[in-house]
């Protein structure tokens, strides 16, 4: 079984937000609109967060793209009362939208605040409405449930089916999440962390590699390469 993970090179990221946009189109996340965004209701499975240290002129800014960390030791899944959210056998943390009761204990427990709640039924402006991803696996989620980044798990399923249809063995490189595929600066890497020869596994062991809030022991599978 592969253990899927991601590496993001902060030296290469220039905060173009194409990952955020690609994620939105791939996963049908609703548009909250400016009013609700101010209230903290925007749903962004992937977000680019500015980390500003110091004050002008001695200022150092780092842009941190933030998908779900898909922790190996996820605090969010432990607290779910109905196992609506769980880590699957390949290490991806997913949500069962049909089972979620909307108690929001997982959103409270996630130290990265990457889990989003559907405060309203999902909505899109007319123009965007025409361009939803037709894949039933990413059908818009109903109001009242929690949703989050899935490493585009629907793409994993498609890649497996495709490999089977073509009569070949599925390779880790067959599967790429939308944010990785679209990344303008080629800052994102994705693959099997358990495969010692994979690029992600090598980069994850780089001396530049670090993870967010590593001290909490959540064992995130998203690694960052420090800005040089």
């Amino acid at each position: 079984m592969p253990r899927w993970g991601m590496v993001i090179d902060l030296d290469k990221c220039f905060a173009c937000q194409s990952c955020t946009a690609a994620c939105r189109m791939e996963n049908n996340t609703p548009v909250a609109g400016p009013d609700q965004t101010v209230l903290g209701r925007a749903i962004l499975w992937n977000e680019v967060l500015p980390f500003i240290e110091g004050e002008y002129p001695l200022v150092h800014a780092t842009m941190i793209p933030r998908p779900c960390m898909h922790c190996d030791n996820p605090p969010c899944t432990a607290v779910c009362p109905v196992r609506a959210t769980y880590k699957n056998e390949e290490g991806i943390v997913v949500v069962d939208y049909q089972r979620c009761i909307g108690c929001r204990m997982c959103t409270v427990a996630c130290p990265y605040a990457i889990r989003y709640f559907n405060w309203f039924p999902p909505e899109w402006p007319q123009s965007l409405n025409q361009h939803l991803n037709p894949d039933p696996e990413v059908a818009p989620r109903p109001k009242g449930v929690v949703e989050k980044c899935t490493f585009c798990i629907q793409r994993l399923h498609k890649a497996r089916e495709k490999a089977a249809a073509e009569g070949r063995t599925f390779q880790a490189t067959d599967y790429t999440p939308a944010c990785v595929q679209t990344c303008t600066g080629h800052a994102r890497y994705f693959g099997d962390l358990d495969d010692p020869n994979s690029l992600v596994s090598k980069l994850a062991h780089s001396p530049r590699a670090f993870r967010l809030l590593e001290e909490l022991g959540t064992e995130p599978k998203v690694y960052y390469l420090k800005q040089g």
Partner: protein
Amino acid sequence: MHPENKNEAIILKPIHRPTTGDRLLWFALGGILLLGLSAWVRQYVLGLGVTGLNRPVYWGVYITNFVFFIGLAHSGTFISAILRIAGQGWRKPLTRAAEAITLFSLPFGVASILADMGRPERVFNIIFFGRYQSPILWDFTAVGLYFLSSIVFFYLSLLPDIALCRDRLTNVPRWQRRMYEILALGWQGHPEQFHRLEKVLDGMAIFMTMLVVTVHTVVSWMFGMTLQPGWHTALIGPFFLLGAILSGTAAVVIALAILRKVYKLEQVLHIGLFNSIRKLLITFTLGWIYMMIAEHLTIGYGNMKEEMVVLQDKFSGTYAAIFWSMALLVFGVPVLILIFKAKNNIAWMVTASILINVGMWLERYIVIIPSEVSPRLLPVMGQGIYLPTATEWLITAAWFSGLFLLYMTFTRFFPIIPVWETAEHLPEFEPEGLREAQAVQTGD
């Protein structure tokens, strides 16, 4: 056979046909309850976006209310179970008034959770798919068990008095008499029945005491088990528990004072009772400030970055006004009133109790919100904001009205002072074994 109680007539007097005043009050409270229910329906249709909740403040006033209602519920068990075990005879006249608070606030604790859920119609998933890894399951089990055993405990100690109503209140409407007949379960008041009842209540008191400690501890663990700054502390359990007993006991004072005034029960609910509760309240407020200092000093001295953000926000930031008024309301003012003014003075007792309860609600709020507003990733996410909306306040008002409504309706149909527990003489009971043993001793 019924126990002999010289105050029987006084205690049974409030049970009569509802007056116009009653009806008006029922109408008002029921109206607020209905308004709140319609606000809840609207929230269900439109989505939880009609509240002030957001990311990262996922829990707000509803969860505050949940903790508060479960806290209020600790009054009854404390007075009737813990003091029963401790052999405190003075508790007897106020056991039922206290237990009724327990019984009627628990449903609104549950209702607060339902109001908070994004998908309340899926609540039974907790039974179908529930798993004990989650603190919510601990809550569900503990609160559920607490509610069920409170009903049994309450009902059992009410039985002899229902039978009394059945036999004494002959001029009430037919349906009401029928209700007493059914609910009395054929209680005859035999000495042995009283003996067994006492035995069961003693046993249950031990169980209830364990349960009451568990309930509020697991309520706090809903927060304590997460890694959020300000919540992840072992003290949160005992601190929540002590706060619950404090607000519960203060609520008993308020209820007693109203009952005494409205139903003219001065003779039964004498000033001595208030003086006894006064001592308890002084102890609890002192205990509360002790835990308050212990918790904040530990966090402050440790000086860990994320924890300090929350602490400073409470001490001198966004939440300073609420934090310091909470400290004054729960401790500063009440402790002075209780020590210097409240002895032999019910008005001061009630004032202190109201302050304590308002303060305790704020305390729940101040534990929950500031931690969420400043998540661990604060430097990159920025601080959250939370302003409760009209929907949240309306539902809050409705749930409190519901509590008052249930309470006052109950007092119109059942004696709120336990006649049999406060009786001078219960029907005598001499177990067989005891008689034989005495016979052997005296050599008969």
